[in-house]
């Protein structure tokens, strides 16, 4: 039977190749209920579906053909209708999870081709969402004999070892292994995990390491592939002398089996791919491991983008270490991939989870670090998703009633690409939740800062913001940055036309944020509040009277709370060779200076490579972003606070250190900036 909360669907039947119709039977189980439905697919419809899947794969692997978000939704809808049909769909509807809960969807397919379909992209037209991003983590299981026998129950806090195997030389240009290891170590070491890095140059190497490490988790970093001649997946092990060996699926699964490993995380390409003409348990790395009794395997059904891989794996480990179920952890990991600066709209679906029990908890959280169980609330897409705080509740402030009323007020329909603001607490983050009382203040640095700055990401999706704030705080002590999470009221996004255009577009409407943000700074005990949105701003600009299309604005009710737009900032940052999050920090710094009443600074029309350049054309920003020094004398000389100047210099130096050697000429027509201050 399916686990306590999961819906398990068996797909029985074979996808025909002979030009005739295909008949598929779906048998579903959920708790104590079950359902059967049958669907006939014409050969034409099946070929169209195959073509779409081929196009998706071609886009991921080769960038061609173009596969838009809409095409992905269309494919996802077809897959959804294929899987969840008739009574099975009715069972699905009845089994929808309650607010804040999830219901894993477990898929087992008899036909090998169907088993290889990209089920992770299931799209529900009814809720207009990819279910694997929301409340239905997708898991795969096998119809196989002998049945997979999982390892013993969750490992207690005292015994948690992660063997991180590097299958390529550390200098491999396509794999940033050191960074991945750092991400894993940063997330797991504080929670009592022992991380054992190991450089495997051959299969015997890896076999010995498995023998000696006694690990609970095996994490592989490197290259994987699928040998179409042998019909078998493999891990590639590259020795220091560049000799390459393939560790094929069956042998690898044999080596890993019966060692008490709870999770194998294959952060390499095509490690979830199976042959069309061979049983998955004999051709796919992931399926072979599952069939041999490994309780959970995370693999990849296509080529994996390096940057997204780190975000995904670190979030999954974070959640597993907190005692979340495997399925829930993978769901969170997928959402985290949406924040990658280089992510494409298909990346989040590339990892696949194979498990015999999606509800299993691999590790108990250490008692002192255990939060309330993280849940998903049912807020509409595009809103900030509050997370329950870790500290004990205090009394409920009045602002919460106001926020709850604002949520009930639906004045704008979110656009299809707004995505989620899934927010999870990290060391440098705080949460204000409408459902739970306000939490206490974040830890202060040892040296009392002069200016406490809270940053909150409405929808700009700056994925590395928490890490950036940590680095910024380490680099200087004048400013103390922290990431906070605030609910975004309904109606904050509205359709407005820029002054120079008749076409309306979505803009963040500042007056709507006034109510939510006007008291936020006081409640957070910060000196400045900086909101980041990817849309242009609309509202009433005090200086110019303009109502739309500007890039930064302070609240009328609180001039020290402001919102900045990251519209086009990403491309400007790219042209300047500066990471996006550092560019956002520079823009924030500019607003911090202009709201510092001591110096009377304001933006100047001259484009001087200064953070206070007015930038009549948005692309003028590139000049400033390319400059690693705050050296515009007319502005710099007005600041008499040496500590402040030293801090600004340190933050610029931080950006300089993160710079990449990319600087392409601007070839597109410049877009005109509206008044920004």
């Amino acid at each position, binding site marked *: 039977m399916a686990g306590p909360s999961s819906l398990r669907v068996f797909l029985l039947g074979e996808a025909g190749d002979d030009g005739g119709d295909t008949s598929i039977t779906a048998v579903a189980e959920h708790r104590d209920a079950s359902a059967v439905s049958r669907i006939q697919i014409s050969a034409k419809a099946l070929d169209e579906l195959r073509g779409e899947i081929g196009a998706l794969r071609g886009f991921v*692997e080769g960038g061609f053909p173009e596969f838009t978000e809409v095409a992905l939704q269309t494919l996802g809808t077809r897959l959804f209708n294929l899987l969840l049909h008739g009574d099975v769909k009715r069972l699905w509807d009845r089994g929808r999870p309650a607010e804040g809960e999830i219901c894993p969807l477990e898929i087992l397919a008899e036909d090998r081709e169907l088993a290889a379909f990209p089920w992770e992209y299931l799209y529900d037209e009814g809720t207009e969402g990819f279910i694997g991003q929301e409340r239905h983590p997708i898991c795969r299981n096998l119809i196989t004999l002998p049945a997979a026998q999982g390892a013993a129950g969750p490992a207690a806090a005292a015994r948690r070892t992660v063997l991180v195997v590097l299958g390529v030389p550390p200098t491999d240009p*396509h794999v940033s292994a050191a960074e991945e290891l750092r991400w894993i170590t940063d997330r797991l070491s504080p929670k009592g995990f022992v991380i054992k890095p190991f450089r495997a140059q051959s299969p015997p190497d890896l076999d010995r390491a498995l023998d000696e490490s006694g690990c609970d988790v095996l994490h592989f970093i490197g290259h*994987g592939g699928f040998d*179409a001649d042998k019909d078998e997946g493999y891990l590639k092990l590259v020795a220091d002398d560049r000799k390459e060996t393939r560790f094929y699926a069956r042998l690898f699964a044999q080596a890993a089996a019966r060692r008490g490993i709870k999770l194998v995380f294959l952060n390499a390409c095509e490690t979830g791919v199976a042959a069309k003409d061979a049983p998955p348990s004999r051709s796919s790395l992931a399926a072979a491991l599952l069939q041999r009794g490994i309780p959970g395997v995370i693999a990849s059904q296509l080529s994996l983008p*390096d940057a997204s891989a780190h975000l995904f794996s670190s979030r999954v480990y974070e959640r597993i270490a907190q005692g979340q179920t495997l399925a829930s952890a993978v769901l969170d990991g997928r959402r985290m991939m949406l924040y990658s600066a*280089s992510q494409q709209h298909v990346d989040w679906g590339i990892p696949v989870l194979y498990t015999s029990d999606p509800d299993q908890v691999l590790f108990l959280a250490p008692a002192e670090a255990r939060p309330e169980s993280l849940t998903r609330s049912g807020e509409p897409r595009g809103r900030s998703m509050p997370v329950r705080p870790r500290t004990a509740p205090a009394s409920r402030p009045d602002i919460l009633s106001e926020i709850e009323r604002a949520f009930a007020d639906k004045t704008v329909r979110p656009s299809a690409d707004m995505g989620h603001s899934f927010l999870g607490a990290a060391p440098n983050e705080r949460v204000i939740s409408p459902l739970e009382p306000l939490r206490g203040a974040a830890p202060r640095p040892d040296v009392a800062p002069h200016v406490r700055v809270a940053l909150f990401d409405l929808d700009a999706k700056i994925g590395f913001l928490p890490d950036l704030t940590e680095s910024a705080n380490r680099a200087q002590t004048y400013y103390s940055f922290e990431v906070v999470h605030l609910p975004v009221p309904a109606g904050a996004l509205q359709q407005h036309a820029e002054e120079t255009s008749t076409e309306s577009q979505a803009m963040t409407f500042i007056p709507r944020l006034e109510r939510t943000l006007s008291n936020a700074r006081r409640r957070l005990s910060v000196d400045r509040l900086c909101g980041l949105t990817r849309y242009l701003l609309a509202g009433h600009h005090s200086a110019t009277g303009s109502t739309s299309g500007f890039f930064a604005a302070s609240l009328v009710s609180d001039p020290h709370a402001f919102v900045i737009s990251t519209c086009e900032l990403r491309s400007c940052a790219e042209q300047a060779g500066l990471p996006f999050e550092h560019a956002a920090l520079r823009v924030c710094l500019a607003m911090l200076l202009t709201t510092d009443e001591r110096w009377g600074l304001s933006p100047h029309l001259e484009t001087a490579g200064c953070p206070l350049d007015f930038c009549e054309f948005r692309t003028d920003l590139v000049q400033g972003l390319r400059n690693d020094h705050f050296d515009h004398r007319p502005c710099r000389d007005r600041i008499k606070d040496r500590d402040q100047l030293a801090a600004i210099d340190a933050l610029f130096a931080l950006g300089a250190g993160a710079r990449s050697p990319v600087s392409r000429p601007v070839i597109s027509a410049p877009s005109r900036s509206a008044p920004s201050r």
Partner: protein
Amino acid sequence: MDVIQEIALRTDAEIEACLQGVFNGLAAQKEAYKRLATSPDDMKAVITAALGAAALPALPEGDAEDAKEARARALRALLVEMAESPELRPRVEAQIARKRDMRFDPITSAILLAGIVMVLSTHIEIEYKNEGGKKNLLVKVVKKPTDGSVLARFFDLFKGA
């Protein structure tokens, strides 16, 4: 995008990676190419079927500097050929425009042969058929390449070799 200029600006390693990526993309859509990538003999069979028995030039092999340079020139010429094909140009442009590091294993060690096959892919259909437990390669020439119209630049490199 001036794709020819972009090709000219790329290093030899980038050109090879680009070709691997294009082949990867093609193989992701057409399974037969994935299998083909594992067999240099099958790739030679495809080339022979499309261009005739005498078409296959002596390809530079070995680690000597001049062989490496010849291979690099050949790969670049192949990419230019592909860029000048209306059907293949979008694939080349998509690869060149890609900025993401992907963790893929190069799909074939015989990238020169694969490159030739890619150029010919618009003229042929290939299929692997299961016959008696063996996978047999079938090649159908749907559009016969005329002399000089395909791979001209590439074969010119090996004239007199």
